[in-house]
């Protein structure tokens, strides 16, 4: 039964006040308890970190244009710092917090029809913990940086003399707690603040994804926290727990580290998959296919992700028994992801596809995630991984899933909810063009790296044999193209703030509750409790020329109500 209220878009005229204009001044933002403002602050912070991490990426790719030194002053040690900082910033400051912190915070309560998250002050606390973690990371840069790789493997991380290791470990520890508190908040919000009528299987799939992500955040992150503290203690007082000469075990560190870090990569990808579910169904104007399968596969991925961490350790000295076990289980973790891809493709089939910028990002995701996921199987296979481990093949694989999928999902989601967040429409031409440039640049950069890796080019290497150079040059050119694409995206979105057309409540024809309030939403989200129907049933929506957006047509709604889809 679709019960979207036709009167809602009238809010625009009656109540011009929205969450952005509700109160003014620095403190009204710094001490806000409004989840929407916190989401916006996260977005700005995360994008700034993305810029910093991206600069390190461009630096390291530029350095790799020639074997040996390319950029004057960049020695091997400096290069090590480049890739370490690129990795640490991107993983801990950008991808893990981005979708839950920025888009999740903004959208989750509104999609639920709630007034706020369960613990608004904890939410603000999470944001400030992120800021503290970022400050510690910058502090570590000032204190000499760190060159251990974002994975901080012992014995190097416990013995290296670069001065920035302990500050960044504290920084990541704090960021871990930011992540944990966000996860706690979201789990309680989804459990307790759903409106009457919204059963679990009526929730939008983005919320299922955020919920599954939150489970991982709560269960996995503490193990990372204690592992990093053990490294700090090891550096400070040399307890010897990871030091073989003192009876310790360096592989134990890897067990602890990857017990978090493998589920962490699912923290990165699950929310993006949730976004793709929304983008595909809304922009193809078709009910999502296999709702329950997609919802339950999110939970399955969350649980399975804890069983496979050893596939990062196949060549570390882990026993052959464990190697075999982890390899076997890793194959199974691909299954729920494949279930999702098939359901998305089936949703597109015979859909009324609008080739909007979010749809282009969703289509990019499908291509890039398929490549990334399938190459993950190459790496899960024990015998091929022995050759591919620590080569560029791994680098290409994880960039396809972390950047080509998670980040692309994030940007697609940004474009999808941009009108809702800012009240402005961006230029579709520019947005689509930027998406193309990013897609092309990305593939040039990273597809080349699959070949590089299978030919034996090791990762994290400053110097290399001359026969690899031509591929490095191609990859670097691709990275510049990609950077251009991101600049275009930034221009597209930022310029929309100044010259974009005013956004209607429902520019894309979405059926979930956030499209029922104004763009931007009012301070308390909804004037009255919205009623809940099937958020993927779009039959009662019709395009309104005057509003340049979708509205509920009562006649269509009545007709749809007679034939419920599910």
């Amino acid at each position, binding site marked *: 039964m679709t019960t979207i209220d036709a009167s809602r878009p009238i809010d625009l005229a009656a109540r011009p006040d929205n969450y952005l204009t509700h109160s003014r001044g620095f403190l009204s933002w710094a001490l806000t308890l409004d989840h929407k403002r916190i989401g916006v602050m996260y977005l700005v912070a995360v994008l700034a970190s993305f810029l910093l991490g991206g600069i390190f990426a461009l630096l390291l790719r530029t350095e790799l244009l020639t074997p040996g030194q390319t950029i004057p002053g960049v020695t091997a040690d400096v290069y090590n710092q480049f890739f370490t900082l690129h990795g640490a910033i991107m993983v801990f400051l950008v991808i893990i917090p981005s979708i839950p912190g920025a888009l999740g915070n903004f959208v989750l309560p509104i999609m639920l029809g709630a007034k706020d998250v*369960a613990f608004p002050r904890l939410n603000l606390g999470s944001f400030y913990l992120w800021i503290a973690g970022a400050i510690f990371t910058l502090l570590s840069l000032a204190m000499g940086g760190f060159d251990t790789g974002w994975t901080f493997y012992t014995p190097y991380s416990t013995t290296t003399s670069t001065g920035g290791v302990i500050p960044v470990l504290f920084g990541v520890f704090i960021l871990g707690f930011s992540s944990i508190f966000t996860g706690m908040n979201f789990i309680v919000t989804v*459990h*307790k603040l759903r409106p009457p009528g919204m059963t679990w299987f009526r929730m939008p799939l983005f919320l299922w994804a955020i919920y599954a992500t939150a489970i991982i955040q709560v269960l996995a992150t503490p193990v990372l926290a*204690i592992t990093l503290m053990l490294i700090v203690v090891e550096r400070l007082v*040399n307890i*010897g*727990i990871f030091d073989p000469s*003192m009876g310790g*075990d360096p592989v134990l560190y890897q067990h602890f580290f990857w017990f978090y870090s493998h589920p962490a990569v699912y923290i990165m990808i699950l929310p993006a998959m949730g976004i793709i579910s929304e983008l595909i169904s809304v922009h193809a104007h078709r009910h999502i296919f296999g709702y329950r399968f997609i919802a339950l596969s999110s939970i399955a991925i969350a649980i399975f992700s804890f069983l496979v961490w050893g596939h990062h350790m196949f060549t570390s000295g882990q026993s052959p028994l464990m190697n075999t076990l982890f390899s076997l289980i890793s194959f199974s973790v691909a299954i729920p992801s494949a279930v999702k891809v098939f359901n998305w493709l089936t949703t597109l089939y015979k859909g009324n596809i609008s080739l909007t910028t979010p749809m282009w990002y969703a289509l990019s995701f499908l291509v890039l995630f398929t490549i990334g996921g399938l190459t993950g199987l190459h790496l899960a296979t024990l015998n091929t991984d022995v050759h591919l481990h620590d080569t560029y093949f791994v680098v290409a694989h994880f960039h396809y899933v972390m950047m080509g999928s998670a980040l692309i999902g994030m940007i697609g989601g940004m474009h999808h909810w941009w009108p809702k967040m800012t009240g402005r429409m961006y230029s579709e031409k520019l947005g689509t063009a930027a998406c193309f440039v990013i897609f092309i640049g990305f593939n040039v950069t990273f597809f080349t790296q699959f070949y590089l890796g299978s030919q034996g080019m090791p990762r994290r290497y400053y110097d290399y044999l001359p026969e690899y150079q031509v591929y490095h040059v191609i990859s670097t050119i691709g990275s510049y193209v990609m950077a251009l694409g991101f600049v275009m995206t930034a221009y597209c979105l930022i310029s929309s703030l100044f010259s974009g057309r005013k956004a209607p409540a429902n520019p894309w024809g979405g059926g979930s509750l956030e499209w029922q309030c104004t763009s931007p939403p009012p301070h308390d989200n909804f*004037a009255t409790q919205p009623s809940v129907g099937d958020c993927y049933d779009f039959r009662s929506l019709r395009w309104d020329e005057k509003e340049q957006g979708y509205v509920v047509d009562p006649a269509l709604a009545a007709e749809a109500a007679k034939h419920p889809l599910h």
Partner: protein
Amino acid sequence: MSSIPSTHAAGHDDHHGHGEHAKYPFLAHHFETPAHQFDSAKLGMWLFLATEVLFFGALFVAYAVLRVRFPEVFSYASHYLDTLMGGVNTCVLILSSLTMAMAVRFAQTDRTQAMLVCLVLTFMGAVGFMVIKYFEYSHKIHEHLVWGKTFYVPPEGELGQAERAELSKAPEPPPATLNPLDPAPAIVPTLAVLPAVEASAIKPASRGPVGLATPREQAQVERLPVPSEDPAFTKPALHLADPAMPANTHLFFAIYYCMTGLHGIHVLAGMVMLAWLIWRGARGHFSSKYFTPVDVGGLYWHIVDLVWIFLFPLFYLIH
């Protein structure tokens, strides 16, 4: 604006919205009823406790791995821990858990005075725990029963004089007869043979019991009295002179300090939390209508107790 049918289940208050919030000043705007808020707070706290379980859990795994690899280290070194002090600490924490649960009950039944008394008693229990821990730690640290390389540095005072005098001399180079490529018959040759010492990047193994390893330490042995002849050696402090001490005993103390230290930090945090509850309770914030902070604070305190319930047998009761 068309009216939207209220889909609330029967049983809720008739005046929803403003009514409930006016009646209960502590009720946040995004919760419908006090029960709703209470349930959410409890769930939030249980999720946090789940993270604490995993936080300590990783250290329990490290303990297990070390104990499986070096069971003789754990059997030997646990004698240096005072079972009585550990047992007293356990009882102190159990009683403080009891007083905490009583405090929650008194809050629930509007007996604010009794609640404050119980909270203060819980706080005193925490203080007592930390005091006993202070004595344990300071005694061990004094005798260098600590983590890492310090374990092998002779302690201050007359106990370590002979060793310290010896160590202050410059170390002698290893004798020419030393040939690591010539294994003794007791060692099965399937182990990898190490290359010549000078070029190797592998650090030499930690000092084992006195009487083994390098010639310098051999010289020290000759100076120390033999345990059977000197009654002073029945004191547990002089671990360095005990030939029965297994290799890598420092790992026991490493994991001991990590786990009990982390637990101690949590007790301190609990003390801060209790102080905050006492402060709020004294100002009359808690009653049978609203006692959520006491309840969830109590949950945290019980988890601290729960962790210690496992730490105690794992460190102090090793046979």
